[in-house]
């Protein structure tokens, strides 16, 4: 709970309605889309970079941590104030400050919702490419913090490929720009360091986003396979043949069964797996690409390939993919969403391993994921209320992460390290590697100030306050899908 003096000082900066401090109101900011917890002393909703700067200066004088937060849709505990302190909720800073159509860039505030940017840009024939699955709710500031991805990152890249510059608040409250509107700026690429730094280096107050022209034509294919191995083989063949679709997603049998019960999305529940593939570009080329993709899928054993040309048909094919996460709630009271990447050629082997781990621990594991990127999202269904289940699900999750690492992959493709995976960092990085990263934090002088207790293993991150790790559950909201 906040002391009165702190509240008064914060109110002097952001006004009375910009501070939340009643204990019952603070509870809302205790968690994100994970169910890990951490209670802040005060929650502040700034409206300007100046206010953020003053709050950071106040926190510094008082020795309090500051955790910036967008919509709270994160899946790694990134927004949880593990060491208390001040939570900065950025959602009141959500203006589009400038759209430069000629140069295809926009300057926006970090609280802007991802999809709202593309919606506002459509009249210029432009859009912002990274499309995390929570894009109806998640903010661009959160996307920058996590270096967010999404289904269409296969062709277009993730957040770091689409952000040119950032206005940030340093740990001493100073406001500076990193990167900018023009390319190849001399000096170190501090912009890249901040993107994906999970709020541990600076607080972002403005974002220069790179925009793309809307594609002239889009075709969606749904390829249905009897065996998951066949679908995996199709993915390898597509990539190996040099076709890079805009999106290449896979759903497994368990997911489709649940989906059919829940929403009748039309994915055949007896199939082993489906691939959802999207191609974009000139009308002349997408037709050829779609035909080539259909041929590959049929040659690798697809029993049926459905093709959607109109927006309505395409939406129908995507419906199941977008409803998948919500539908999985039917499997069990809770589910634990994992995020790991493996080389695309290792997908069949790793998926086999994932199911084996499910059998070993007696959990149902549903797989819905970005196959084209090799980015897996196994969802472990479990019942949090049963004693011992949470520990067991975490153990199974760790084993799956280990599987990804052993296959030459990594522990997170797009959700971030956060709290959940900090102890897995040693599986992929040596002490020397982690120390080099730690040096970045020292250079930014942000170690104890911004989002402590994230990314680094506890032993490396001396002085952190550990919090109880709990499993991911059902708090994602109706529109979320991974």
């Amino acid at each position, binding site marked *: 709970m906040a002391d009165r003096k702190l509240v008064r000082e914060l109110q002097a900066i952001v006004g009375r309605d910009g501070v939340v401090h009643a204990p019952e109101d603070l509870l809302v900011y205790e968690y994100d889309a994970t169910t890990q917890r951490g209670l802040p002393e005060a929650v502040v909703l700034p409206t300007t970079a100046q206010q953020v700067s003053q709050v950071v200066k106040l926190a510094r004088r008082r020795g309090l941590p500051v955790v910036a937060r967008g919509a709270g849709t994160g899946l790694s505990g990134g927004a949880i104030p593990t060491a208390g302190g001040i939570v900065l909720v950025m959602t009141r800073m959500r203006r589009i400050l400038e759209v430069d159509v000629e140069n295809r860039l926009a300057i926006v505030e970090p609280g802007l919702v991802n999809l709202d940017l593309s919606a506002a840009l459509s009249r210029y024939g432009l859009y912002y490419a990274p499309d995390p699955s929570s894009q109806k709710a998640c903010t661009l500031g959160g996307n920058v913090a996590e270096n967010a991805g999404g289904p269409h990152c296969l062709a277009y890249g993730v957040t770091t*490929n689409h952000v040119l510059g950032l206005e940030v608040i340093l740990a001493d409250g100073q406001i500076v720009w990193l990167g900018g509107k023009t390319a*190849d700026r001399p000096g170190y690429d*501090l912009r890249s360091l901040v993107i994906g730094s999970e709020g541990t280096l600076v607080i972002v107050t403005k974002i220069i986003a790179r925009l793309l022209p809307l594609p002239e034509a889009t075709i969606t294919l749904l390829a249905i396979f009897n065996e998951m191995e066949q679908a995996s083989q199709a993915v390898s063949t597509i990539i*190996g043949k040099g076709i890079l679709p805009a999106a290449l997603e896979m759903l497994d049998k368990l997911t489709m069964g649940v989906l059919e019960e829940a929403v009748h999305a039309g994915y055949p529940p007896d199939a082993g797996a489906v691939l959802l593939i999207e191609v974009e570009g000139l009308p002349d080329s997408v037709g050829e690409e779609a035909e080539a993709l259909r041929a590959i899928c049929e040659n690798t054993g697809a029993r049926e390939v459905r093709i959607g040309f109109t927006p309505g048909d395409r939406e129908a094919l995507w419906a199941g993919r977008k409803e998948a996460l919500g539908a999985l709630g039917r499997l069990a009271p809770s589910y634990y969403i994992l995020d790991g990447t493996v080389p695309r050629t290792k997908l069949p082997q790793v998926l086999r391993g994932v199911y084996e781990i499910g059998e070993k621990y007696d959990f149902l594991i549903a797989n819905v994921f970005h196959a084209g990127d090799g980015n897996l999202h196994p969802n472990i269904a479990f019942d949090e209320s049963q004693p011992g289940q949470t520990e067991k699900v975490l153990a199974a999750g760790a084993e799956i992460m280990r599987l990804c690492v052993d296959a030459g992959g990594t522990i997170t493709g797009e959700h971030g390290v956060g709290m959940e995976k900090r102890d897995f960092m040693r599986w992929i990085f040596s002490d020397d590697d982690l120390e080099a990263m730690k040096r970045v934090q020292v*250079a930014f002088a942000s170690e104890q100030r911004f989002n402590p207790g994230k990314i680094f293993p506890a032993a490396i991150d001396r002085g952190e306050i550990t919090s109880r790790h709990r499993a991911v559950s059902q708090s994602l909201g109706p529109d979320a899908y991974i």
Partner: protein
Amino acid sequence: MVKESLLHNLLEAALDSQRVFPREEAASYIVDGLIPQVVALPETVEEVAEVMRLASREDAAVIPWGGGIAMSLGNTPRRYDIALSLSRLNQVVEYEPSDLTATVQAGKTLADFQRHLAEHGQSLALDPPSPQEATIGGILAVNASGPSRHAYGTARDLILGMRAVQADGRIIKAGGRVVKNVAGYDLSRLFIGSLGTLGIIVEASFRLAPMPRAERTAVVSLPSAQEAWRFAAQTANFGLRAVELLNAGALRQVPGLAEAAADGYALVLAATGEPAAVERSLKEMGELSQRAATASLAEVDESAQDQLWQAIASLARPSPTNAALVCKAAVLPSQVPTLSEQIETMRRELAFEPLLVSHLTAGIVYSAWPLPQDEGVQRPLDLATTLRQAVARLRGSLVVEACPLALKEKIDVWGEPAADFPLMRRLKEQFDPQGILNPGRFLGRL
């Protein structure tokens, strides 16, 4: 002070006499007039680490070398004891075509690497000048790019991870080999463009691109840069790989293009992708040029286009024999015409004949100003200063990539550091506290 003989002996112990040269044989490793005490040619990552441990112990300044083609870039070194050549680390470490990824050592030349990938119909989508000599490590250290950045971006868009040897000899890894990875701080992108001042890149993993099934090149002659910009703006959806803008001076240097523009500009555009889409893009560009009264389009013969693009890529490369001032300006793409016109005015006032080559859609304008051998420092200084002021008015940046040594002593070739510089200085202090990696050569003489 470093004792030459001691250093030499230690290096011989760490490597062997076949891979260490003394100063007398180090003349080709000259940087801005300085010759190193010793040249080391390690063959393994561990040997690079050994050299750095030794350099750190001896407080010896190290300048890493790749192909040596961009050594004119940067301020004059504060000191220079060891030339560390990565040329013998030239292996492809891992290549799985079906993953569209590859890991390669820093000393591999780009051309060698591309040949390897081409066997599987793939490539690294980077086309900086001099691919025969340019090494992967060198390209990353200077963040070199070429016309293809229009479609594929720069090294920072293609990198997946890297290994680097730190100033104290410790070997670190950042990122990984998979295409999506957000574990930890993005040190790979930080190291790109840091001119070897934070660590020595020894290995890099990239996402690759399938070779397009078709490519055709068109040259559109236009009377002004402004009209070129308007033309290019209408090609946004055409699936182009490159959109280069050349002035008459540059066009005269490219075989086959000399007649393309009497005194104006030419856009050189490459359309790539599926054959049908390439045909359509070409056709629509033809129609665009017919509608514009002052434009004329010529298609480049398919057999000649590779050579044409190589010639364009090397236009702004500083010539090793002729003195020249080579500047790289970065402005908003829409301001390229304004800057080009200002440079034309300077050309008339100063009686120089610059070559202008722009990566138009990236807002990058290279200007190369040939200088007479007996040129003093004043005119190039005036030129660089005027150019820098023009770019500053457009809120862009200007790097002097090559210039006479006398000029380097009077300017910071990178320009004035900005408000983020204290952070950069602290990073340098963290990663290289002794200041032994390329000391003095980077922005703000870091």
